[in-house]
């Protein structure tokens, strides 16, 4: 069975094109997370699937049916909003029942579905309350419940966790993952929080400026970011980017020289990399470790002790900065002269256009 298909979808507000000719196929039962910075068009995309925003051009298909011109209510989707959008003057029960009553679901069936959803979401004690009498987390569960009772073809989530405090956000994240596992429905989840994206997604779409920069599983995107934008957006701390000069290849693998003179051999096929002479090296903190005897040297400027690991911000001889990872109990201190050991395989190269090159996966 099909999930959601977007074919050549374009959205323009006046002369401004927000989303241009976008194709996306979401499989049934998939948990697709759309991740991107604010203003990248991810919410607009979700609202076009919901029918809240008309499509300028292209087609939206749901379960194989063209729904581009259908009203939101007729599409068979349910949406959870960022600010919950609960009806303030209705009780939780009526909030859940409203949509079903509007389409003439039998009262006994409404009762059954609400009791079922209330049980799953632990809302039973609150059914007679009004939204104002609930906490933020409870309201969010009601909003999710309102979507669940409709038994929709697809769930759409528009940054639903961003109004919750950090602890509750992490818990609700787990609850959502559990809910998806239980219902096995198609879910599309929009967020700018990469931790949410990485933990929830079966597939992840990273959006930037109205385009999908990369679509893949979270680990694919983490290990093999398609562009410099994706590489910089995914991962905490952000990937280090250092300008490098290209050196003659060794055994077919690209070799680069940092501005401080350090020469690094990569595992990237030199022939794959374009003709650019000036490249950018991308390396995550976890792939650079402090090693006393290493050739590359620098001076630590800031030490971040995160408990499970230590991050060292190191200034190289040429003045560029990079974040390296050290053991959680590392004795490193600010101002220390340290050596930096680079892992070879997780190095990435980016050309001037931002395209990424990685070591072949098979190794």
């Amino acid at each position, binding site marked *: 069975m099909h999930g959601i298909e977007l074919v050549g979808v374009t959205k323009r507000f006046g002369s401004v094109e927000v989303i241009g000719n976008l194709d996306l196929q979401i499989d049934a039962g998939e948990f697709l997370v759309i991740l991107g910075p604010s203003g990248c068009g991810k919410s607009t995309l979700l609202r076009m699937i919901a029918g809240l925003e008309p499509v300028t051009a292209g087609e939206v298909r749901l379960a194989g049916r063209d729904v581009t011109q259908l009203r939101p209510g007729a599409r068979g989707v349910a949406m959870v*909003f960022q600010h919950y959008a609960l009806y303030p003057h209705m009780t939780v029960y009526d909030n859940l029942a409203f949509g079903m009553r509007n389409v003439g679901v039998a009262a006994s069936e409404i009762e059954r579905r609400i009791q079922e959803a209330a049980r799953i979401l632990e809302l039973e004690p609150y059914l007679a309350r009004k939204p104002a009498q609930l906490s933020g987390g409870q309201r969010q569960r009601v909003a999710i419940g309102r979507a669940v009772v409709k038994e929709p073809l697809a769930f759409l989530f528009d940054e639903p966790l961003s109004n919750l405090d950090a602890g509750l956000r992490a818990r609700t994240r787990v609850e959502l993952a559990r809910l998806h596992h239980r219902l096995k429905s198609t879910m599309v989840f929009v967020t700018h929080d990469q931790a949410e994206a990485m933990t929830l997604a079966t597939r992840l779409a990273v959006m930037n400026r109205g385009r999908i920069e990369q679509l893949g599983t979270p680990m694919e995107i983490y290990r093999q970011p398609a562009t410099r934008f994706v590489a910089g957006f995914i991962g905490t701390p952000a990937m280090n980017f250092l300008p490098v000069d290209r050196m003659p290849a060794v055994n077919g693998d690209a070799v680069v020289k940092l501005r401080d003179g350090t020469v690094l051999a990569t595992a990237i096929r030199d022939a794959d990399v374009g003709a650019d002479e000036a490249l950018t090296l991308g390396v995550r903190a976890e792939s650079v470790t402090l090693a006393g005897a290493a050739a590359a040297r620098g001076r630590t400027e800031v030490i971040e002790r995160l408990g499970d690991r230590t991050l060292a911000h190191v200034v190289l001889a040429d003045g560029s900065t990079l974040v390296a990872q050290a053991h959680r109990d590392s004795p490193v201190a600010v101002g220390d002269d340290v050596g930096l050991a680079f892992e070879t395989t997780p190095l990435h190269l980016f050309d001037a256009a931002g395209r990424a090159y990685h070591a072949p996966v098979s190794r």
Partner: protein
Amino acid sequence: MTVPALPPTAVAAPAARPAHAVQRLTELPAPGEQRWANGLFVAPFLVIYLLLLVVPLVYGWWLSLRHADLLAGTSRFAGLDNYIELWRDSIFLGAVRNTGVFVVMTTPVFVILGLALALALNRPGLLAAALRAIFFGASVLSVTVVTLVWRLVMMPDRGLFANLWRGLGGEPVQPLSIEGLSLAVVAAVTVWWTIGLPMMLFLAGLQQIPRELYEAAALDSAGRWRTFVAITLPSLKRTVALVIVIEVVLQFQLFGQVWFLTLGGPNNSSRPIVQFVYEKGFREWQVGYAAASAQVLFTLMLVGILLQMWIARRREVSP
């Protein structure tokens, strides 16, 4: 001034503070001391409020208990005589009835028409903005201008109505001189004149309703009528109450329109309480009697508002 009893924790807290904090505290006046100086901030308001509202109100009550005649220069205590006399005064009772009928005629129209206009004009675009300005613009006009315009419209032989009527083959009528109709015409003119305020209040209320609620309702397959009844109306409950209270207070004070259109006629059929007060006080100089009738108006307005609040609260309690 006595210092209010503090909970034990609040009393104990300063002792636990570091020394410099304690020192700073001692430099500040102790609680309850010199607080009167803070009263200066509210003094301007308080003075005006006392002089222009409280004093006249109390003076009015006191005056209503006296036979005060400005022309003769006499004033003596009369107890409830003025009120008893009012109760027997058919002109006054007629004025009370007229005012009540007027309030009942206009207030629902203000609510329904104001809401309808707000719903129709609550959209972006130049046309809606222009219409909003026009509807509100009429409220800015002076009552003299408004009544002049309408008197021209209703002129017996050359007015717009007369011409229209003749065009339809009828005999021209003068609605202001028909006993059962004159007050209704005053009501229509009043609505035409001041519909802008309730419209604006409803517009403000509508814009307070989050757009997400409507989107959620759209996803919940609610049609336009269902959305209006289930989302818009309940969200506007407070605005409706506000408009009712404001309009009851305003329309009970009917005067200018009547004064310039009908002078209370024909046969006292459009004479409101305020006109009665004015005539007794400043035409016949019976200020005690006028004050008593003004107190009746005040009480009526109060009852009207309390009734409205009671109904609103009852509706909120019942499911």
